[in-house]
């Protein structure tokens, strides 16, 4: 799992049926790259979160058939990027 920061929300009305109605979030990883993850926990902009990737991302969704490869697993209570 990786630690990322939520940059904002993302709206995609036109999407494959396999994504369902999952909320999408824009995340930034430690290298500054922006990624999109589905959000079952309700993270807000500025929150630090940890993410599951690959096939584990599907099991992190309420419905494991969701077609995702990046899912927010939880919001980190206390985190500063310097450690």
């Amino acid at each position, binding site marked *: *799992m*990786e*630690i990322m920061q939520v940059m904002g929300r993302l709206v995609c009305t036109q999407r494959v049926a396999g994504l369902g109605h999952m909320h999408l979030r824009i995340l930034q990883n*430690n290298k500054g790259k922006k990624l999109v993850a589905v959000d*079952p*926990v*309700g993270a807000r902009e500025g929150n630090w979160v*940890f993410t*599951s*990737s*690959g*096939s*584990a*991302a599907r*099991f*992190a969704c309420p419905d*494991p058939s969701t077609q995702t490869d990046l*899912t*927010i*697993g*939880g*919001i*980190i*209570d*206390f985190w500063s990027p310097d*450690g």
Partner: protein
Amino acid sequence: MLICKVVKPLVSTNRIPGFEHRHLQVVLDGSSKKVAVDAVGCKPDDWVICVGSSAAREAAGSKSYPSDLTIVGIIDHWDPDSSNPSVGGEK
């Protein structure tokens, strides 16, 4: 499998139910920080081995556990500067 160094525990109260109450650890893989599920009970500064992909899910408890990185062992002796851990021996 990856050799990682445990940095500190990660506290996340608001998490998906699938992660249950398992301990999470921040680990250092080279210079990048990652989060791993702790299946063995390690402490900060321990050197550990981590598995990824589907092995990470089963090692953490079940085939449907949502982990992509799980700590599966604590290394007894490991010197990061040596290529052969059995010769290195610093703890």
